[in-house]
């Protein structure tokens, strides 16, 4: 392994002479490790504390605990002494493309090898330091739970007592990684480090930030995307007790007050005038009609593997298509979706002496720093970001708008300003899961298996191919095109991105093909997956755990679906009782199987499956963001309904290990299979196929 670790002695105040062991890492290249400076990924303090720098935020996914498990296991650290700190947004901590963010289910998989190496190197150095002190061979010693032990004599020293001596040794060129069989934290259900503060009110989220002299603000943005603030008379807001300022921004008006209630009351007293923007007169029905027309027309940009010739791929597809015994085609549609995190968007900013300091629940620190610097016309080095606990992300906090607004408002005020969005503002100014329509078509052989596959996607999103080009199935002669059309609706990353829509299309379509073939939907998928033992095993695990093939309890029906999101396959079986016409079904049980290669924390993987299933169930049952005259129609949880306790299904998770496959993420993969599994179960129950989500639409019903 081309890995080099730097150690330095560091004097600690009050304990002169005691030194920490500090280990640094930078892309396999020598970097400067310096306590309290940059690139100090791992520090073992003389008092035994183990300080781990992480670049991934905690927003409920448990990644920080998983990262600590990885390093603590290899280090043989005392778990109770692990401390996690957010790394500074500095070069050694940035990703290869200069990125500092948390998303894409990537926290664990990005850092798994690196943290193992750091921990193993530290353990090796502590063992050698102990061996030298005792005058024995390192092979006669072993590290265990925060100590190094001389096996023969039973002598032991704490890691902290050895840190100074270890810091004078050369790090190993090839850190001696433990075999999997010796892992004692990786693979074990390990309690989350952050949870004690989340049951007693002590955790500080962005919304809880308090700074000396701080004012509180709220805002209204242009009700139509792209509209600008033309004018606003501030007097009615300024007449509200506690209101201090009304700040006009290009596309928003901000009311700054002593507290939130005064700011909100002031804001509601205003009558801002907005320019109409490009979406004036546009409705969701218009968008849907346009996307349907584009999908039907096909002819979008084809998805091509590297080096593939478009004409040749199309010719091969058409040739195969002509050989099918029969053809089948269907069109599917999904709506815009909001993230609706429980903690509404917010950020606290102080602008002082040409410098901006932000306290913010962000998933995207490097983007935030860039965007704030650009908006304020200051260098990025003049932007300091403190990341708070995060009350839900799901992709929403990869955008930076709330932080930029806070900085712009604070610039006008001169004291710290906490800018908090109301719920309706949050719902109506999101970066949405893109509305998408797709026409899928297959030519089938005499046994009902595809000999050629085509999808024509029309989406508000660009490049929306994830999960469909390719699908998890080895469809022969596949040809997938996409046409992007967007009149100005903000689009963003919604937990599992393209996979949320494309898995609904593909898995609904495959279920329909199974029906045409007169085949059991799981058995049909198994025929399609012949030659993919990993997915076959996964699907079988989910099916078996769900009692697929055995009679369901009276009145209940099952449906299955699967996806493979960036290396993690996930299969789900939904068991439900259908509702009356126009009513939601009752989902009793969801059985999931997931395979992320190596399961670092099975308890957290189950939690992510439970979360992904529930988020997707809310979406599939009744959620949609719709526009009328360019304005979002939904505002609160009555029009954007959430699954609550009474509708929450029992969720059972089977975790499979695949040690021969790379470790991969778990935050997103449980989301995509749920909506099609639900639609497939409903089709099994009623014979009616739902091809447009959500199942129960307040808007469509009203038409």
């Amino acid at each position, binding site marked *: 392994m081309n890995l080099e670790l730097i150690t330095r002695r560091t004097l600690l105040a009050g304990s002169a002479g005691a030194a920490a062991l500090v280990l640094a890492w930078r892309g396999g290249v020598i970097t400067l490790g310096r306590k309290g400076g940059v690139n100090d990924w791992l520090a073992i303090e003389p008092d035994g504390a183990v300080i781990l720098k992480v670049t991934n935020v905690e927003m409920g996914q448990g990644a920080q605990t998983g990262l600590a498990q990885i390093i603590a296991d290899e280090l043989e650290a005392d778990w109770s002494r692990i401390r996690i700190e957010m790394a500074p947004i500095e070069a050694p901590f940035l990703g290869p493309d200069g990125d500092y963010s948390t998303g894409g289910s990537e926290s664990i998989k990005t850092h798994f090898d690196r943290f193992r190496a750091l921990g193993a190197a530290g353990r090796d150095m502590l063992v050698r330091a102990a061996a030298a002190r005792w005058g024995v061979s390192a092979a006669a010693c072993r590290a265990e739970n925060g100590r190094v032990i001389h096996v023969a004599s039973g002598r032991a020293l704490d890691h902290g007592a050895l840190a100074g001596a270890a810091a004078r040794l050369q790090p190993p060129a090839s850190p001696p990684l433990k075999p999997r069989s010796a892992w004692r934290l990786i693979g074990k259900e390990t309690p989350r480090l952050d949870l004690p503060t989340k049951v007693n009110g002590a955790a500080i989220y962005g919304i809880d930030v308090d700074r000396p002299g701080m004012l509180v603000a709220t805002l209204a943005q242009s009700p139509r995307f792209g509209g600008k603030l033309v004018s606003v008379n501030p007097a009615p807001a300024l007449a509200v007790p506690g209101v201090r300022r009304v700040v006009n921004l290009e596309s928003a008006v901000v009311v700054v007050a002593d507290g939130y209630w005064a700011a909100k009351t002031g804001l509601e007293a205003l009558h801002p005038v907005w320019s109409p923007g490009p979406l004036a007169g546009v409705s969701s029905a218009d968008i849907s009609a346009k996307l349907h027309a584009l999908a039907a027309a096909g002819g979008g940009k084809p998805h091509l593997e590297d080096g593939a010739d478009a004409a040749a791929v199309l010719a091969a597809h058409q040739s195969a298509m002509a050989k099918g015994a029969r053809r089948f085609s269907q069109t599917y549609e999904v709506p815009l979706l909001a993230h609706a995190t429980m903690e509404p968007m917010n950020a606290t900013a102080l602008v002082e002496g040409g410098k901006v300091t932000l306290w913010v629940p962000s998933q995207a620190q490097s983007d935030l720093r860039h965007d704030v610097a650009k908006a304020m016309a200051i260098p990025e080095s003049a932007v300091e970001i403190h990341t708070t606990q995060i009350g839900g992300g799901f992709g929403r906090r990869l955008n930076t708008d709330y932080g930029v607004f806070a900085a712009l408002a604070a610039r006008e005020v001169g004291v710290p300003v906490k800018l908090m969005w109301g*719920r309706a503002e949050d719902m109506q100014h999101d970066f949405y899961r893109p509305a998408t329509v797709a026409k899928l078509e297959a030519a089938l052989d005499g046994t009902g298996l595809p000999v050629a596959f085509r999808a024509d996607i029309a989406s508000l999103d660009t490049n929306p191919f994830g999960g469909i080009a390719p699908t998890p199935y080895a469809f022969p002669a596949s040809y997938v095109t996409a046409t992007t059309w967007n009149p100005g609706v903000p689009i963003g990353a919604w937990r599992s991105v393209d996979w949320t829509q494309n898995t609904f299309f593909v898995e609904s379509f495959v279920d329909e093909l199974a029906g045409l073939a007169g085949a059991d939907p799981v058995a049909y998928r198994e025929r399609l997956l012949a030659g993919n033992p990993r997915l076959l095993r996964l699907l079988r695990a989910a099916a078996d755990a769900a009692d697929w093939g055995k009679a369901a309890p009276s009145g209940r029906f099952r449906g299955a679906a699967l996806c493979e999101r960036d290396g993690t396959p996930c299969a789900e079986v939904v068991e439900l009782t259908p509702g009356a016409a126009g009513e939601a079904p009752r989902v009793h049980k969801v059985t999931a199987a997931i395979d992320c290669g190596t399961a670092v924390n099975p308890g957290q993987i189950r939690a992510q499956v439970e979360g992904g299933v529930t988020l997707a169930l809310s979406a599939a049952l009744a959620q949609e963001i719709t526009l009328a005259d360019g304005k979002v129609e939904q505002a609160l949880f009555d029009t954007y309904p959430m699954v609550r306790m009474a509708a929450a299904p029992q969720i059972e998770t089977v975790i499979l290990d695949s040690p021969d496959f790379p470790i991969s993420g778990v935050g997103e993969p449980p989301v995509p299979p749920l909506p099609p599994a639900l639609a497939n179960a409903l089709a099994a129950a009623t014979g009616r196929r739902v091809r447009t989500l959500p199942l129960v639409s307040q808007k469509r019903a009203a038409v």
Partner: protein
Amino acid sequence: MSQTFQLNVNGAARTVSTEPATPLLWVLRENLKLTGTKFGCGAAMCGACTVLLDGEARMSCTLPVSAVGAAKVTTIEGLSPNGSHPLQQAWLAEQVPQCGYCQSGMILKAAALLKTNPRPTDADIDAAISNICRCGTYGRIRAAIHRAAGTA
């Protein structure tokens, strides 16, 4: 006009000066710096702002401070002196929270349930726990309530 209110919060007498219409939520969070109670929707739809008033669960985001009177207000910070309430212990044992933002409200809602119904059935929990958890921790909340039942 700002008025002075005498409140009983987590067993202590507190005096605050604010507009009478200000919801209790903002008095707790901003005047008294008890930020464990969260703002979710401001419309009594999600339950993130749930506190106990004389032991009963109330959504503080729509409750004017002027309507609190002499009622004993309990927030998550006051449920136990050190996080040792059976529900808090059960929440940790079941590893309930994900992002954790809704959990103060969930725990207080559960505390109110157990006070009147020490051994709730699943149906009782379905009926009583109507708060929103966007992370989908409902199954673990249910398990934690059952775990704490009889000891709370």
